[in-house]
């Protein structure tokens, strides 16, 4: 009985959690004149896709989605690769100043990106990379959190395994790619999901660097939809937000199990 009651409380609070998102989608599906009613409407009557149809009239949505995807994939692949290499070095190799360098890296973890944007902007100008998608993924190839996180993860993998491999005459790369990384797969998945999610939702960085419409990412395009002079109607904005949110929610539903398992592992290993 007590259990049932608790279940009910949990389910109700779960409903409360997703209520704003449900409202977002309902509003996006409503006719403009029926949107934003009080009492709030929880079923769009009649449902319509007209707001969604208007989104591509306002921003090159498909192009932006492609840019976001491209940047997210490159960033994720790159960050996983460099983090694995660096994490291995910081955990398994011995070289002078290793721990000092690592603590400097750790310190970098707590520096907000808002403070590093200007120096990087100046560098990108030198490289003639401003207003290119390269400016977004290039600095993201090295991910300090990723190094820190994978190092913790790798340190939990028994050294006896590498020693056995060394006996067999294996080099560092062989050990890393054939012994360590396969065992670190949950950690890699977790990191990959994190980096992908962060990149897909990243607003600040692309906002500063990208200026041509055909190079913008979705969150930037989304915000550009909402301007004072010539922005679209609010319902269209809601439709656009839905279009940004929906793919990632669907992905989550599909990969829920490994997703949650991976994220959970971040807390256990680190």
């Amino acid at each position, binding site marked *: 009985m007590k259990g049932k009651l608790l279940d009910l409380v949990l389910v109700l609070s779960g409903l409360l959690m997703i209520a*704003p998102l449900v409202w977002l989608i309902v509003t996006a599906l409503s006719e403009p004149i029926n949107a934003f009613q009080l009492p709030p409407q929880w079923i769009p009557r009649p449902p319509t896709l007209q707001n969604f149809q208007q989104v591509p009239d306002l921003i090159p949505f498909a192009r932006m989605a492609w840019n976001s995807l491209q940047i997210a994939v490159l960033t994720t692949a790159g960050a996983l690769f460099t983090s694995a290499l660096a994490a291995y070095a910081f955990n398994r190799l011995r070289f002078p100043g290793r721990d000092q360098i690592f603590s400097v890296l750790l310190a970098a973890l707590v520096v907000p990106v808002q403070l590093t944007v200007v120096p990087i902007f100046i560098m990108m100008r030198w490289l003639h990379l401003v207003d290119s998608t390269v400016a977004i993924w290039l600095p993201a190839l090295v991910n300090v959190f990723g190094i820190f996180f994978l190092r913790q993860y790798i340190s939990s993998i028994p050294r006896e395994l590498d020693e056995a491999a060394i006996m067999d005459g294996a080099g560092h790369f062989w050990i890393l790619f054939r012994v360590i990384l396969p065992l670190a797969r949950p950690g890699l998945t977790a990191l990959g999901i994190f980096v992908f999610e962060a990149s897909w*939702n990243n*607003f600040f960085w692309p906002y500063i660097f990208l200026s041509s419409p055909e190079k913008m990412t979705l969150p930037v395009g989304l915000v550009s939809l909402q301007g004072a002079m010539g922005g679209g109607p609010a319902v269209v904005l809601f439709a656009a*937000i839905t279009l940004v949110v929906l793919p990632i929610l669907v992905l989550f539903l599909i990969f829920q199990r490994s997703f949650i398992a991976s*994220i959970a592992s971040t807390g256990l290993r680190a």
Partner: protein
Amino acid sequence: MFHWDLLSTPEFAGLDNFKQLVSDRATIRAVVNTFVFALASVVTHIGLGMLLALGVHRTMTRGTKYFVRTAFFFPFLVSWAAVALIWKYVLDPAFGLANYYLSSTTNWLASPTWALPTLIVVDWWHTIGYTFIILLAGLQTVPAQLHEAARVDGANAWWRFWSVTLPVMSPTIFFATVITFIGAFQIFDPMVIMTQGGPDGATRSIVQYTYEKGFQSFEVGYAAALSLVLFVVIMIVTGLQFRLGRRWVHQ
């Protein structure tokens, strides 16, 4: 340590920027706000996250478990830009859903009393999923035999939680605390998008203040001094956490 507006030549200022910093009331306000936000954030994330994890961890139907876990995790996947926009509509004092259902007229984001707590709630809504999942995983590592043994020894539920669950979970809780604290201390997006630091600086965070000084009023030297302070504070607090952590985290 310079007076510099990004355009002209920097001028050496010695410790001027730091002196100004100590006497600048807006800075002190921002530091206080950030600490309040970070502490409240850690307490609510860990406390309520733990309750949730305990609730979900009990045996319940798979459907319920799936739903609750999904519902609480969803918001974490939505970008701040979208979260802030949705919530500004939800919290509108006259036309918003929140006041409609609460039968209230509170101006959540514009009241000096409510603005900061409101942001804490919205931030909680956005990131609790992550904390919750980590804690839930930690909970699942507690061996059932330990619980059984304690039960046989006559320990009640509360005592079992205190003497078995908590110690075994302590590394997870520790990790969650550190991550939540670092994230909360750098908070920037919701302030900028939802309140612009207002009303009258009631929700301005350190990072936001640094950003305003550096990129809106061109006091780059001052902004640099501020970020240095921010950096040192985070390092000290994180260091302290690790120090304390060593004491109570079960190895």
